[in-house]
C-alpha cells in the first residue's frame, strides 16, 4: 500500500489523535430503546461532559463504550482500533475487549472498590495481575498515586473504614494505576455527602488540567462548565445538543436543554 496516501488520509493530520469514537450507537433493554443512535468523538486530551436528565441514557452510553453493557448495534472505536462486534452487538473477540478495557479506566458512582483488599491492594491489583507489571514497581507507583489523591498513609486501610470521598479518590488512584488512555467517570460525586464532593472534584480537575482524556457523566453543571472542553446533552437516548461549554451553557438552543438547565440550576 502507498504509504504517502495512507499518511494523507490518516487522522494524523488532526494534531490530536482520536481516543474514543462512537458511531450510531443503539441500545435496547427488551422493548425499551435507551440509546437511539448516538455519535460521539473524543480526541486525546478532551474532557467531554455528558449531561442530561435521569434515565436519558448517560450511564448506558458510558457502559456500552467498554462493553459492560452490550450495544444493540453501532460502532465503537478505541484509540483507532474498532471493537469487532457480532451481529447481536456482543464483542466477537473477548481477548480484544479485555485488552481495550485495560486502556479505559472506569470510575463508578458507587466507587466499587474491592472491599476485601486494602487501598494499596486495590490499586496494584490490575497492574500486577492483568498488566503483569512487576509487583515492586506497581507498589511504588501505587504509593505515588495514593499520595497524589491525598491518601498517603492510608495504604493498609480497608475501603469500608473510609469516607465516601476517600473511597472515590482511592478509586481514581486505582484507575490511574493502569495508565489509561481515557477515563470514564459515571457520576463520580453523586453518592457523596455535599461536603465531600469538593475533594473529589479537585482531583478530577487536576487530571483534566494535565491533559487526561475523559468522558464525564455529571450532574455538577458548574463543574462541567469549568473543566470540560466539550459538552453533550443527552435527551431520551439522543444527543439533543452539543458544543463548547460556553455555547451549551451560555446559549442553549433547544427548549429542552433550556428547560433542563433551568431545572438543575
Amino acid at each position, binding site marked *: 500500500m502507498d504509504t504517502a496516501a495512507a499518511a494523507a488520509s490518516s487522522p494524523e493530520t488532526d494534531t490530536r489523535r482520536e481516543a474514543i469514537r462512537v458511531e450510531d450507537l443503539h441500545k435496547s433493554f427488551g422493548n425499551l430503546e435507551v440509546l437511539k443512535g448516538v455519535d460521539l468523538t473524543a480526541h486525546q486530551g478532551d474532557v467531554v461532559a455528558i449531561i442530561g436528565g435521569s434515565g436519558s441514557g448517560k450511564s448506558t452510553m458510558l457502559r456500552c463504550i467498554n462493553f*459492560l453493557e452490550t450495544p444493540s448495534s453501532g460502532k465503537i472505536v478505541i484509540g483507532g482500533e474498532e471493537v469487532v462486534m457480532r451481529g447481536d452487538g456482543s464483542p466477537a473477540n473477548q481477548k480484544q475487549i479485555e485488552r481495550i*478495557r485495560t486502556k*479505559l*479506566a472506569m470510575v463508578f458512582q*458507587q466507587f*466499587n472498590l474491592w*472491599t*476485601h483488599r486494602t487501598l494499596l491492594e486495590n490499586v496494584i491489583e490490575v497492574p500486577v*495481575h*492483568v498488566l503483569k507489571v512487576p509487583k515492586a514497581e506497581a507498589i511504588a507507583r501505587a504509593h505515588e498515586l495514593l499520595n497524589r489523591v491525598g491518601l498517603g498513609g492510608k495504604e493498609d486501610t480497608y475501603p469500608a473504614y473510609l469516607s465516601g470521598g476517600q473511597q472515590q479518590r482511592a478509586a481514581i488512584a486505582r484507575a490511574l494505576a493502569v495508565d489509561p488512555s481515557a477515563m470514564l467517570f459515571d457520576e463520580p460525586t453523586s453518592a457523596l455527602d455535599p461536603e465531600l464532593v469538593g475533594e473529589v472534584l479537585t482531583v478530577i480537575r487536576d487530571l483534566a488540567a494535565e491533559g487526561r482524556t475523559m468522558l464525564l457523566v455529571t450532574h455538577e453543571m458548574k463543574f462541567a462548565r469549568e473543566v470540560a472542553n466539550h459538552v453533550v446533552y443527552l435527551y431520551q437516548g439522543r444527543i439533543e445538543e452539543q458544543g463548547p461549554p460556553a455555547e451549551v451553557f451560555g446559549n442553549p438552543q433547544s427548549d429542552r436543554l433550556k428547560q433542563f438547565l433551568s431545572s438543575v440550576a
Partner: protein
Amino acid sequence: MTGLFELLGLGASAELLSLSGWGGNLLRGLANSLQIAFGAFGLGLVIGLFGAYGKLYGGKVTRDLLAIYTTVIRAVPELVLILILYYVGSDIINKISEAMGGGRVEINGVAAGIWVLGVVQGAYATEVLRGAIKAVPVGQIEAAKSYGMPAFMIMRRVTIPAMMSFAVPGLANLWLIATKDTALLAVVGFNELTLETRQAASSTRAYFTFFLAAGFLYLMVTLCSGAVFARVEKWARRGQPSLKGGAR
C-alpha cells in the same frame, strides 16, 4: 470414695479405654472418620463451586441437571442415599472391572466413604456457595470486568474472596454435618468411630463407657472445628467493620 469410683466403673473404664486396647480402636475409628469427613467436605466444596457457578451462569441443560441433583440429594434421607450410592458405586466399579476382564474389586472404604458423603455434601455446598456468590455486590465484579480481568481471574481474585464471608458460616455447618454423617457409614460396615464404638461396647458390655467416650470425641472435634472456623471467618470478613462495634 473408692466405692463410688468402683460403682461408676471408672477404674475398669480406664483400663478398657487404654490405647493398646479398645481405646486405640476408638482413636483409629476417629482418624478414619476425620479422614472421610475431610475428604468429603473437600469434594463437596469442589462440586459445590462448580454447581454454584453452573446454576448461576450455566446453560439451560446444566441448570436443569444441577436442579435435579440438589433437589434429589436434599430430599432423600442421607442414610438411604449412602446405601444407594455405596452399592450403586461398588456395582458400577465391579461391572467396569469385569468388562475389562478383571475380577471383583475390593472397594477401599475410605475412598467409598469420601465419594458417598462428598456427593451429598456437594448438593448442600452448591446452595451455600450459590447464595454467597449472589451476595457479592455486582459492582465489585463489574469493576473487575471494566479493568479487563478475564472471567477466571475475576472468579479467583474477586468473586471467591468476596463471597467467603457469606459462605463460611454455612460451610462450617456443612463440615460439622460431614463429621457426624461419617457415623452413617457404619451401615455399610466401614470402621469409623461409631462402628468401632459399637464393637468395643458389645464385646466388653461396657456400653456406657464407650459411648460416653465416643460422644466426648465427637464433642472435641466440634469444639476444635468451632475454633478453627472462627479464625477462618475472621479472616474472610477482613475489611468489613464488625457488626458489634460498627453501630454508628
